[in-house]
């Protein structure tokens, strides 16, 4: 089977192209997805290929075009709505929470909302406080949604397919730090199983649980730890709602130590839920408290050195890993 080197961005684009080609009901809409070619060039070329009805530029009206996506999904289309970045998704949150996530239940199971909402997320490019949010964890709080965060090129390629097969709304978070990442991808790469977290590295001494933009950082930290004789297992959550408890717990039950890495602000981030669950379920397997490395609780500052200090980094992850294996138990 042949393989090609592809970037995360290209993988997302191919997944979109394939979805559009496969199913007439699929269309993409959002700000600058068409003529501009996509803010992060993900949808570049698709307008030429599929035309303006299916690659639909919208006005700056996040609430309306997300709501329109919900409406179109209700009427059995398969809309893919792109919110340029998670930062602007706040303007559409009512439509997501009180609409997309809730209609199936409120209608007693009558109205499905097969909607996929993609958004770029994350900090790290000196875009400052209003353009650097990591709010995936927030969305993972909402019943009725599936929340996914591809961290690898293969997942960027495969997750959209699976998301489009979901009869319920799926939020897909693309970390801006990953767009340029490249990897080999088999030519027939396709749908991936969204129900399971993935072991990205095996190790006996501790489990690092992470997702999205923190996967490469966690893997780098694991390498650094390995150089010091500490073998970290790395679990990539992939789906943030619902969480795959089994994979997490199975790993931690083996390593007896868990470190959760999350680009969200520490208090109330997804890391808290993961930590709470681990101790709830396998408290007596733990040799040490579940530790966390998250973003500092500060609106992300512009200055480079401050932004770097505010976010999880391979160094801070490795340091927390070392402290964890040194902890009593």
């Amino acid at each position, binding site marked *: 089977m042949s393989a090609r080197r592809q970037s995360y961005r290209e993988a997302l684009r191919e997944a979109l192209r394939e979805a559009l080609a496969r199913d007439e009901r699929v269309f993409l809409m959002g700000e600058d997805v068409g003529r501009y070619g996509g803010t992060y060039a993900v949808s570049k070329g698709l307008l030429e290929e599929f035309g303006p009805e299916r690659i639909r530029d919208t006005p700056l009206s996040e609430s*309306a075009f997300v*709501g329109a996506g919900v409406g*179109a*999904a209700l009427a059995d*289309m398969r809309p893919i709505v792109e919110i340029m970045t998670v930062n602007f998704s706040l303007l559409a949150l009512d439509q997501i929470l009180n609409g997309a996530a809730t209609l199936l239940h*409120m209608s*007693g199971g009558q109205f499905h909302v097969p909607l996929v909402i993609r958004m770029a997320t994350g900090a790290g490019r000196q875009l400052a406080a209003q353009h650097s949010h990591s709010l995936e964890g927030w969305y993972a709080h909402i019943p009725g949604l599936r929340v996914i965060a591809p961290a690898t090129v293969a997942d960027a390629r495969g997750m959209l397919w699976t998301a489009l097969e979901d009869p*319920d709304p799926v939020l897909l978070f693309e970390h801006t730090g990953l767009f340029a990442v490249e990897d080999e991808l088999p030519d027939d790469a396709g749908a991936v199983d969204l129900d399971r977290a993935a072991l990205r590295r095996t190790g006996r001494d501790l489990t690092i649980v992470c997702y999205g933009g923190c996967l490469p950082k966690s893997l780098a930290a694991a390498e650094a730890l390995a150089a010091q004789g500490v073998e970290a297992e790395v679990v990539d959550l992939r789906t943030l709602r619902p969480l795959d408890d089994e994979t997490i717990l199975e790993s931690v039950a083996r390593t007896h130590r868990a470190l959760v890495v999350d680009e969200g602000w520490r208090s109330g981030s997804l890391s808290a839920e993961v930590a709470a669950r681990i101790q709830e379920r396998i408290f007596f397997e733990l040799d040490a408290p579940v530790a966390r490395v998250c973003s500092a609780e500060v609106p992300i500052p512009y200055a480079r050195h401050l932004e770097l200090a505010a976010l999880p980094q391979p160094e801070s992850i490795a340091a927390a890993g070392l402290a964890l294996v040194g902890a009593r138990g």
Partner: protein
Amino acid sequence: MPERAAVPAAPDVRQVGRETCLALLTDMLRVRRLEERCAQLYGEQKIRGFLHLAIGEEAVAAGVMPHLRADDNVVATYREHGHALLRGVSMNAIMAEMYGRVEGCSRGRGGSMHLFDRATRFYGGNAIVGGGLALAAGLALADRLAPRPGVVTACFFGEGAVAEGAFHEAMNLAALWQLPVLFVCENNLYAMGTALSRSQSRIDLTAKAAAYGMPSANVNGMNVLAVHDAAGQAVAQVRERSQPLFLELHTYRFRAHSMFDPELYRERAEVEEWKKQDPIPRLAAELRARGAFDDAAEARLEADVAQEIADAVAFAEVGTLEPVEDLLRFVTSERTPR
């Protein structure tokens, strides 16, 4: 309909036809009596939560619904019992819903504010002011893309929603993309206790439509024949031209906003003044004047309606409660049907 048509003269009973008028009267009365009963049942704590009555405003739903086809879509607000009923949702299912029963049109999960019905393409029942407009645009977009030419989405909302950003965004989107949505603004002058003049710098709401280049009309929402006439033209225009249209219907709610409202914000006299325009006796009187309605007919009609309501209450009373073990159903779709 031209851009911002003037208030059209309402047709009279003769022009509309006796059958149609009687049907309109029946529709309004069914809604009125149903809601009066709901208020009672609320007092008896059979119905709970929020309950918003449209008593006084029946001409709106009654005048618009007859023009919609089975494949059209309807989006409404939390004040939507009449809309659901006249769209064709059974009174049984509506009543059972307010009783929180499985037999309710939303299985008892939604209640008064969230009536839904797939069979009649009734997309709710939305308790977020302005929340339904974008949804309506999306339904119409789906019809455009499918394509299902000639399908209309009717979207009802109160004048209070006009202040929401959601209104602006959806109106622009519908006009920009020429989506076949009929926006029906039920201007009953108040949003809870806030008079329109305290909510809008310019209270002529068709001026908003004009800002989007959307055709619009002003209609006397207390005269069901006027509503029926204007809505007929409007629906036809949306259907034929596949473009949105904005109807402002001037109406009034006779009752409190909800069951908790002490109505401090308006004078009793104002309410009484508006009650003189009650669309139901008004049409009844016109019909009587033409000899098309009399005491006997009225008694029959009231009896029929009372029976329908009694049946609905009986139906709801013996309805089933969803087993508590099923609490988590319908959060996500069931992949293998149970």
